[in-house]
């Protein structure tokens, strides 16, 4: 199709007009500022042949100079503060919020967002029938104390810090996952957790956090993950050239990377030849290594330097990583607390104040800069980096508890949290939720191979891991808000035994004898709600028409498990 670019050209002509119209001279809101910056960037970027504009010197980043907006560690007070700020944004944009969500929306949402799975039918029935005025707050406490809270966060963080890579294919992933799970469940303060990771020493067996270094086997990968995941900054572009969007220079990149230059990580043993990878580990060596994974011509060896910050004076014999960890988690670092606040918000709302969530550059301003700064300040001081506390406070807000049904007035809003964003389950959430209904995993032959595990081979691919890999389909993560599964995944859900399991139908329907009762059980189990009157009418007719009720129940469960309502988080 040789004319493709021409078509694009025509499209743009139209697009440029829209852009022009939508840009008032006196930009007021953050979004408009963002748009203007974008426009400027596009114009600048559009002339690759011209010499790049001279980059200004990178200023030394200043500490967050905001006062703590909530003086006590009080989740309800923090929730009120958040709602006040969100209301301000809504008023500025003249948007009215959607109403409070129903109990069934809240139940399913809170379960999936916090514990990573859906409630059982019994749990759903009990919650929906409860008359306790405080039942939502109580559910939040229950879910935050549930061990699945730690597993859900461990899924996300293991995926981030253990990228798929040929150099780490024999490194054990499970110990890191277990470590994260335990840390999150014990509610280790975030600054301490990150310090433990960044400074980890010892073997996998002694200190599973050391896996971080075994899985990211070069200083450049470590610089990337540190900046991206702990500071919310995409630094990778600066690996090979000065960052195109911002003022990061290539030396800033290699200055960060240099903090990891004394890390000595053992080589993973070939598990196919019986190597035991629980004994390998990491230590801080005496001298800087020059090994880099991808070595652009222009890469330089530079002394350790904090990103956008000063060059610390380090003796050649001093360990580097504790110095990095101290700066990373200190109040002098303007990114650390904001990054985890933005991530946590995105985990619950499908999008952060800054999007993409790990692109927190000045050029990409937040939708609610004051709220982000205020929450970061509070979490890093009064809040003591207590993540369960942060989640609880956010989930208590009106903003979190709004329905995802848009109103005609706010349906186009994507930035002001006027209604809850529809989220898509991650592969892990989908597997765990299907397992909740169908006993998937127990039935699917996902037994770990004990012999293999004992021999120290890579984590045995149990049913959950296999399912997750199939739904990830080679990607590292799936989008939190887009439905991204393809034809093979739809075929698997429709036609494999996952949604075609007579034992699962019996398990869900149980001893119900009347069709109404059976249908209600299917809905509570799969969709965490009771069917509407309309649905009940249609479905009882369907059962009556079918030859055998069990077949009809199987059909209804099949449809529920394959529905978008099942796989999306409303």
């Amino acid at each position, binding site marked *: 199709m040789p004319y493709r670019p021409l078509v694009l050209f025509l499209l743009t002509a139209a*697009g440029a007009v829209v852009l022009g119209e939508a840009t008032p001279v006196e930009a007021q809101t953050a979004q408009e500022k963002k748009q203007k910056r974008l426009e400027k960037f*596009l*114009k600048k*970027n559009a002339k690759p042949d011209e010499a790049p504009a001279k980059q200004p010197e990178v200023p030394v980043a200043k500490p967050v100079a905001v006062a703590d907006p909530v003086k006590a560690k009080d989740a309800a007070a923090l929730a009120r503060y958040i709602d006040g700020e969100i209301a301000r944004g809504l008023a500025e944009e003249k948007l009215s919020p959607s109403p409070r969500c129903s109990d069934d929306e809240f139940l399913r949402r809170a379960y999936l967002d916090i514990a990573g799975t859906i409630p059982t039918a019994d749990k759903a029935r009990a919650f929906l029938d409860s008359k306790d005025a405080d039942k939502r707050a109580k559910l939040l406490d229950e879910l935050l104390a549930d061990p699945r809270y730690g597993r859900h966060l461990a899924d996300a963080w293991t995926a981030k810090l253990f990228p798929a890579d040929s150099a780490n294919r024999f490194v054990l992933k499970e110990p890191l996952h277990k470590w994260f799970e335990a840390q999150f469940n014990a509610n280790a303060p975030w600054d301490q957790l990150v310090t433990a990771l960044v400074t980890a020493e010892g073997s996998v067996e002694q200190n599973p956090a050391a896996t971080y270094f075994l899985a990211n086997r070069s200083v450049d990968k470590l610089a990337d993950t540190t900046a991206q995941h702990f500071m919310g900054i995409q630094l990778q572009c600066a690996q090979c050239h000065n960052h195109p969007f911002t003022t990061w220079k290539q030396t800033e990149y290699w200055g960060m990377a240099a903090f990891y230059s004394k890390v000595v990580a053992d080589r993973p043993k070939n598990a196919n030849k019986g190597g035991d990878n629980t004994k390998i580990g990491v230590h801080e060596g005496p001298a800087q290594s020059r090994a880099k994974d991808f070595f652009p011509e222009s890469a330089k060896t530079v002394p350790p330097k904090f990103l956008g910050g000063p060059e610390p004076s380090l003796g050649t014999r001093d360990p580097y990583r504790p110095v990095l960890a101290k700066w990373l988690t200190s109040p002098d670092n303007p990114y650390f607390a904001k990054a985890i606040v933005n991530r946590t918000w995105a985990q619950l709302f499908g999008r952060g104040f800054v999007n*993409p969530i790990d692109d927190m550059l000045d050029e990409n301003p937040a939708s609610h800069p004051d709220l982000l700064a205020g929450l970061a300040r509070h979490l890093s001081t009064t809040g003591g980096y207590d993540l369960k506390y942060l989640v609880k406070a956010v989930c208590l807000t009106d903003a979190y508890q709004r329905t995802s049904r848009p109103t005609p007035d706010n349906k186009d809003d994507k930035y002001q949290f006027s209604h809850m964003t*529809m989220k898509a389950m991650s592969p892990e959430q989908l597997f765990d939720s299907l397992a909740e209904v169908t006993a998937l995993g127990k039935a699917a032959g996902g037994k770990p191979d004990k012999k293999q595990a004992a021999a120290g081979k890579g984590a045995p691919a149990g049913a959950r891991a296999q399912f997750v890999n199939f739904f990830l389909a080679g990607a590292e993560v799936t989008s939190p808000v887009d439905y991204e599964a*393809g034809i*093979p995944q739809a075929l698997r859900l429709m036609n494999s035994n996952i949604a075609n399991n007579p034992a699962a139908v019996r398990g869900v329907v149980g001893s119900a004898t009347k069709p109404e009762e059976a249908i209600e059980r299917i809905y509570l189990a799969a969709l965490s709600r009771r069917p509407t009157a309309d649905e009940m009418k249609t479905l009882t007719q369907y059962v009556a028409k079918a030859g055998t009720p069990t077949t009809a129940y199987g059909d209804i469960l099949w449809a529920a498990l394959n529905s978008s309502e099942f796989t999306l988080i409303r």
Partner: protein
Amino acid sequence: MLTEKTRRDFLRLSAAGVFAPTLSGWMPVMARAAEATGRKPAKSCILLWMDGGASHKDTFDLKPDSKGAGEFKPIKTSAPGVEISEHLPKIAGVMNHGALVRGMSTPEGAHARAKYYGHTGYREGQGGLIYPSLGAIASKELGNPDGSLPNFVAIGGRSFGSGFLGPKHQPLLITDANRGVEDLKASAAATQFENRLGLLDKMEKAFQREYQADAITDHKTTYERAVRLMQSKEAKAFDLSAEPAAARSKYGTGRFADGVVMSRRLVEVGVPFVEVSLGGWDTHQDNFTRVKNLSSQIDPAISALVTDLKERGLLETTLVVWMGDFGRTPNINARGANPGRDHYPRAWSLAMWGGGIRGGAVVGKTDKEGATVVDRPTTAQDYLATVCELMGIDHTKKNETATARPITIVEKPKPFTSLIV
């Protein structure tokens, strides 16, 4: 207000050269080339991946007078002046439709990294991203997003996937061509399956009415495509039992032959990219017996594929590529009684047929030993950009990662299109 989608569009469009003084540079060149030759871009590509890395000196770049010449003799082909291994006599008969690139020279000597680079044009770990493979790029740029057929099919083992382009461009994997697509057969009898779809449709409509989210529409589209695939007559392309026995036997026997038959059937119904892999080329030991055996698999399969495509009028619009991880050492190693050749990325060969290329062209040249490229060294970027140009894909286009980083389809290539069309 500029929505995120619009923002992405602007970035993409700006990458296409809209704000730039000129349109992307390759277009005029391609347009001129197309005008001069009257050729249309290829619609499909079949990539035959020789897993493990095939010995160039024992297949398409024989050096009978070199030190590590090996046991095989060169033979003449239907392309004047082009000689290949004596164990590829049928392929020799179709070299008048093919081109050889004998100057491949790449930087990766370990299997996983070499395969990654050969499929994506990027080094593993570069810039902290997972890059899309050629098949995913073709799926994105040429595929029909709403069609009943997948736009990228990989047959016979693991392939490199869609990376940051996302699961929509992931290949449909066929482990064994004889068994067809996994989960393609409906889980219930036709009437019951229809009933189930009816129930599902009611649920979807009600949910969409209430919640009006894009994700609900995307879910619906994906399910509709999957169901159409299950019920379409094009899906018969995945069913090898529908292929006449005589037609099938020309391809030889075994999984690779079956996969190549399926690839032809898929191209016939319009699938833009099919990859078929054949393992076993990592011949550190017993090189000559093994390469002879492997040659006996590719020889009938490739020659039958090219002939069938030609007879069906599809060769002009279908590009067939034969390649692997890297080449193998010009010298024969000293591993036991039946020695072999080791990994060698510095100089190796790939072969192409169809897709509007000029038959008999040879690009690049190695020295007397087959050890160093002495004319036109070719990287994976050069090769990938060439395939893009043959298929009408603008390889200078930037696609966006999930975090809105614009990434050029092929970075800094020197395509050799003009030498083969």
